[in-house]
């Protein structure tokens, strides 16, 4: 058994050495997709999820985080919101097992709500939490954080206030470091486009 394991480790090392020779361990700057977006944006009908920048000051973001954590409602059931304006099927990204749905209610007027239902949500990594973002069409590619949560079960149901009237294109759930940058971490737990 031990020699099998050693052989496998050696084979893995050789594979990695071959990989390093052919595909360098280099990563592109984080803003490359923004540059692609800038080039195609006049042609785009839906703006992608990567935020150009989330410009809220850190202090404000921390305050908002605490406030939003208090505001987030873990929905026990029932609707009470009428018919949805749009729906998005949520698909897992960093964890492909995550599934779910988001529904917009009253989104074209002030005071709208997005109801997010997620299934098979993993615990937030230690020192991290999840943050919910929305993207408006014609919003200049700017993601807007609308709430954060740390799941206590695999199924999460949230009612979150929308940041204003708008034509919402997509919803994203990011993995954020506690007390970290207010910008989107660029690690998405899951996301989906409204239609």
């Amino acid at each position: 058994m031990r020699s099998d394991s050693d052989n496998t480790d050696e084979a893995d090392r050789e594979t990695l050495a071959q990989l390093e020779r052919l595909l360098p361990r280099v990563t592109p700057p984080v803003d490359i997709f923004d540059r692609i977006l800038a080039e195609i944006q006049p042609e785009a009908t839906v703006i992608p999820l990567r935020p150009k920048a989330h410009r809220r000051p850190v202090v404000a973001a921390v305050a908002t985080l605490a406030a939003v954590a208090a505001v987030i409602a873990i929905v026990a059931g029932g609707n009470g919101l009428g018919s949805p304006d749009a729906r998005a099927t949520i698909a897992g990204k960093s964890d492909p097992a995550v599934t779910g749905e988001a529904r917009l209610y009253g989104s074209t007027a002030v005071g709208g709500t997005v109801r997010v239902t997620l299934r098979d949500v993993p615990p937030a990594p230690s020192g991290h939490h999840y943050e919910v973002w929305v993207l408006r069409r014609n919003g200049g590619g700017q993601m807007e954080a609308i709430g954060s949560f740390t799941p206590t079960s695999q199924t999460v149901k949230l009612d979150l206030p929308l940041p204003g009237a708008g034509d919402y294109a997509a919803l994203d759930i990011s993995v954020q470091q506690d007390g970290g940058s207010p910008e989107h971490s660029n690690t998405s737990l899951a996301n989906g486009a409204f239609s």
Partner: protein
Amino acid sequence: MDDTALDEGAGLDAADEAASLDAAAVARVAGGDAVALRELYDRYGKVVYSFAYRLTGDATLSEECVQDVFVALWRRAGDFDPSRAKLTTWLFVVARNRAVDLGRQKARRPELRDELEPAGSAADPADLAAGADEAQRVAEAMAELPEEQLVVLRLAYFDGLSHAEIAELIGIPLGTVKGRVRLALERLRSLSSHYDLQTDQ
């Protein structure tokens, strides 16, 4: 042997499934859905960048190459025919052609070469392109890994995260991370053997 056969079969199924998902995403891109383009960039952008870097030896040119590849995908998605080629093949053919063009432009323009790289680091474009076939096959093989394996390999290989850090980041057990990395390397090994790649330096 049976396990290996099962693994290979599962890998092929996963590759077919990934190709099918890619085709669906490209169809959405063709319809003007930039979210789909973003999804494809998240899946393949780092591998394309690394491949471009392998061919150009230059970070700035590699960035330009990646931008051009995904802008080309945006503009030509309507022409893509999944019955004729996989998206991964298309991506790396376009990336290779563009990287070679950019490398030639740099070679013809000494002022650009001086601006882009420190003295003494210039590489001969002919040398850089010599292993292009091999690099392209490995890049395609990596890109065609099952999604769950590609995610952990990207984080481990390109982002330099430890297995424990990956487990924490995406919320799966450490043993699962190790298993996925190992399966990914096994699959790359089997594909390397299939493509008869050189393993010597």
